[in-house]
């Protein structure tokens, strides 16, 4: 399926030679890959390999030192986050970020009010209620976000991202820290997004989820692209195993 998607369509996201350093540390070093419409691409790699930084560069949280980010043929390198959001890039955060002083419904309205297909007032509230139901938080619209469990905060964050009607959804370890039941529900939820044709780039350590969801994986190590391919192949790749287990030559 992935090969077919790649050959038939122009990429939705193309990243070319992306680089970002923090002081002397090169967190992302010449990273290139593509994501095609309707694909779920897993971004893998050991801790500290630059995955979150890569998402930050794509979503406009950080500006790259070099390289390009091309969204649907348009060069969007270095645009501020709010403009990229309006162009259709939505994300969740590795350290989950809900708006604790707002209700669940208001948290989702935040995603509806300023996005690509903005809604406000009664329409926004009802669309937010539908999205809350979608992620399994239905009927809890007026509860404050501050009382949510960790797993529910993750759901709320996803509802807020979906409220933006994203063309590309970036998930940063969205499944991390969930208990087993939540994990099953979470995987099903992402699968249902895929079935609707949503395009997803997901950083994930839960390999079962990657096997179940991803069409293709990009593997990073020390900021660099070290492997790419279908999950089964990539996870059996010698360089990938070495990166995860630690390189004994080093």
């Amino acid at each position, binding site marked *: 399926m992935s090969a077919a998607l790649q050959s038939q369509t122009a990429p939705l996201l193309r990243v070319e030679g992306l680089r970002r350093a923090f002081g002397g540390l090169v967190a992302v070093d010449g990273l290139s890959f593509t994501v095609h419409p309707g694909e779920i691409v897993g971004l893998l790699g050991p801790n500290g390999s630059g995955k979150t930084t890569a998402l930050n560069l794509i979503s406009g*949280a950080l500006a790259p030192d070099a390289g390009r980010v091309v969204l649907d043929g348009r060069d969007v390198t270095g645009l501020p*986050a709010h403009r990229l959001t309006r162009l259709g890039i*939505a994300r969740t*955060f590795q350290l989950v970020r809900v708006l604790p002083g707002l209700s669940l419904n208001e948290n989702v309205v935040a995603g509806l009010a*300023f*996005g690509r297909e903005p809604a406000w007032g009664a329409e926004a509230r009802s669309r937010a209620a539908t999205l809350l139901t979608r992620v399994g938080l239905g009927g809890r619209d007026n509860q404050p976000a501050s009382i949510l469990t960790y797993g529910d905060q993750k759901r709320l964050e996803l509802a807020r991202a979906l*409220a933006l009607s994203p063309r590309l959804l970036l998930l940063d370890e969205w499944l991390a820290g969930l208990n087993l039941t939540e994990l099953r529900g979470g995987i099903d939820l992402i699968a249902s997004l895929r079935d609707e044709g949503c395009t997803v780039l997901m950083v994930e350590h839960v390999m079962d989820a990657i096997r179940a969801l991803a069409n293709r994986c990009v593997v990073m190590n020390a900021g660099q692209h070290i492997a790419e391919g279908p999950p089964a192949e990539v996870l059996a790749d010698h360089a990938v195993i070495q990166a995860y287990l630690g390189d004994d030559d080093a």
Partner: protein
Amino acid sequence: MSNTALAIVLAGLAAMAALPFLDTGFWLALAISIAQYAVLATAWAMFSGPTRYVSLATAAFFGIGAYTVAVLGEVLPWPVVLLVAGVIGAVLSLLVGFATLRLSGVYFVVFTFGLAELIRQLVTWFEVNVTRSMGRYVFVEITQAQIYWQLLALFGALLALGTWLARSRLGFALHVIGEDETVARHVGIDTARAKVALFALSSVFMALVGAVMAPRWTYLDPAIAFNPSISFTVLIMALLGGTRSLLGPLLGVVPLALLFEVLTARFPNHFSILVGIVFLLVVYAVPQGVSGLLARLRRGAPA
């Protein structure tokens, strides 16, 4: 605030406009002081409440308004003078806003404090070197009652604006920014523009208060117009009242304006140190402000 609540409050302000017919001495002076701080503290909270940016620029905008009157009061008709004061306040706040609202936390506080001092020094330099006169006499035909009425009108307009804002996308954007600025950017909010817009709205009201109040002094110099204690007083009042609701700051303005009135009369030499003590007490005892305290009491939680 609901439309009904707003209508009741506006009717209340209209009723209070009768005060000058009852007394034009002590009580009118006290009412002017309260009305002045009511507008300033509410305008301050309108920006600083949702964004949680602590601004000490109140004196800068108040001073700009006052000084505009000192310069143009005799030259132009009064409404035009007010207009010019508002426009200068808006232009300055846009410049300052775009330059500084990228700063966060303590840097912003220090910058806004420095701004008032900088403008005071610039005006002083200009007066000494260019016009060669320190200080100006304010000759405009405005009575105390008219000052009071203008302040009430400003307060009414500010409350109407605040009510509209609370329901608007802009107001909601500011709320999201106050909760988490990173999230705000990633839901499509142009955070710099939203903050600058609110800062400008708030600053225009401060400049207008300065302009309206200027005729109370017959003589103005930069030290009077840009007195930094205004910034601190407004800050304490808004914090005591609470910045979560539109009428919150008023709950801090009334008791503190009365207290300061007593302190200036009784302890003129120790005023500053007493104000400092009040500041500490406010921050320690009621971190959520009086309105936050009342809200918690209403919910039945231990305060």
